[in-house]
């Protein structure tokens, strides 16, 4: 076969393109963990939370969260009997060192641990201009720190305020649901450190996970359901005053 110089000029780059796709190959095989077999969420049992701050400290330790930023934090609500619609909410340093002692009064107090809701229809991933944040096939909202530009659109888009710009890495950072742990069969650092079991990692695709029994037998709610984010942080005992 005779290949002219002109054909060669066309064929070589075409071959180069084809080779790049051959090289990209098939997805990396993970022997023990199959993403398609999991769909992660979290169950938060508000009546069990004592506001000790263990989860906040554990998260900061496990994930090197810089001081002043939080992947999870705890809020204390105080609903007074005179103004039921505007609760007083405090979260000193994210509740990391606990809360000041509360005096008994006619109102009610409760703690609300907050974190990324790992929404199935997350508003934060939709606004990323470069595809640096995404929902993994197992339902965890993650940030590719090598690809993130640090523009902060996602930080603004999250209706729950769960993202921040990392002060030294200058990229968006957030709860990974301890992805490095749950893919090894461990629970998240916050769940591991919670002394009362107020937090529970939930695998919504695993029929043996006790979450299924709990969801069937208990009324649960998600935060800001009107936003239709498909949030997967399920709250048991959530008060209507929680924003």
């Amino acid at each position, binding site marked *: 076969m005779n290949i002219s110089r002109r054909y060669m000029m*066309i064929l070589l780059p075409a071959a180069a393109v084809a080779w*790049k796709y051959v090289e990209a190959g098939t997805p990396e095989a*993970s022997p023990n963990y199959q993403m398609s077999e999991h769909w992660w969420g979290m169950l938060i049992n508000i009546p069990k939370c004592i506001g000790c701050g263990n989860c906040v400290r554990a998260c900061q330790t496990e994930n090197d969260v810089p001081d002043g930023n939080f992947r999870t934090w705890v809020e204390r609500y105080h609903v007074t009997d005179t103004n039921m619609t505007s609760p007083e909410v405090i979260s000193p340093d994210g509740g990391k060192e606990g809360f000041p002692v509360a005096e008994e009064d006619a109102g009610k*107090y409760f703690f609300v641990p907050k974190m990324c809701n790992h929404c199935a229809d997350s508003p934060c991933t939709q606004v990323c201009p470069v595809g640096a944040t995404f929902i993994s096939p197992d339902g965890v909202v993650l940030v590719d720190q*090598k*690809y993130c530009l640090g523009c902060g659109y996602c930080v603004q888009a999250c209706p729950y305020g769960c993202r921040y710009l990392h002060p030294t890495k200058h990229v968006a950072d957030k709860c990974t649901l301890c992805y490095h742990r749950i893919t090894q069969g461990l629970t998240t650092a916050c769940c591991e450190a919670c*002394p009362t079991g107020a937090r529970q990692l939930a695998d919504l695709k695993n029929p043996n996970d006790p979450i299924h029994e709990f969801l069937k037998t208990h009324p649960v709610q998600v935060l800001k359901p009107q936003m239709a984010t498909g949030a997967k942080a399920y709250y048991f005992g959530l008060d209507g005053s929680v924003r």
Partner: protein
Amino acid sequence: MKDAGHLFRFAGLFVVAFLVFLVVRGYVVPKTFGQYGHYRGAAIGEIAQRPVKFSGHETCESCHSDIADTKTKGAHAHVNCEACHGALFQRMPAPAQPKGNLYERFVALIVPPPPPDAPILRHADDPASVTPTKPDTLVLCARCHTASAAKPKGFPQVDPTQHMGGVPCETCHNPHSPAMGSDATASPATGGAK
């Protein structure tokens, strides 16, 4: 028909330019971009590689089974080890990073990549060199058990100043099985901690 040759040459130019675009694109778009969606598929694996610091209570119990036995009988049965003891680890010096190919090095000049995670040596990996510190029960126990109207009513709470007046909690309570006199045979909370 002779003039149509100009059009073919022009079209050829477009074809060449398109191929050049594809070649450049092939190099600048990461290999795994689009593997699962509009993002770099390899990022999932990179995030999963981050070091684990909390080993999990199962790991602790595989050696400290005596403490685990004590705990199962008491009120703290469902409080995991690291809820009180914290994650026992130390950071190791980071190894040199691979420089990557020419393109990656060029990009790193413009956008420096985030620093790598420092490798972690856990107590579970090397119990001799990573040793625990004994928690101060006056601080530790008070975090959960200081009386406050905000806490659930059924949760055991005390006013620390009235309850023991500065005496460390472990003087009377074994933190692993806290009820007083409930289990005289319980292992004390020593376990090699300093």
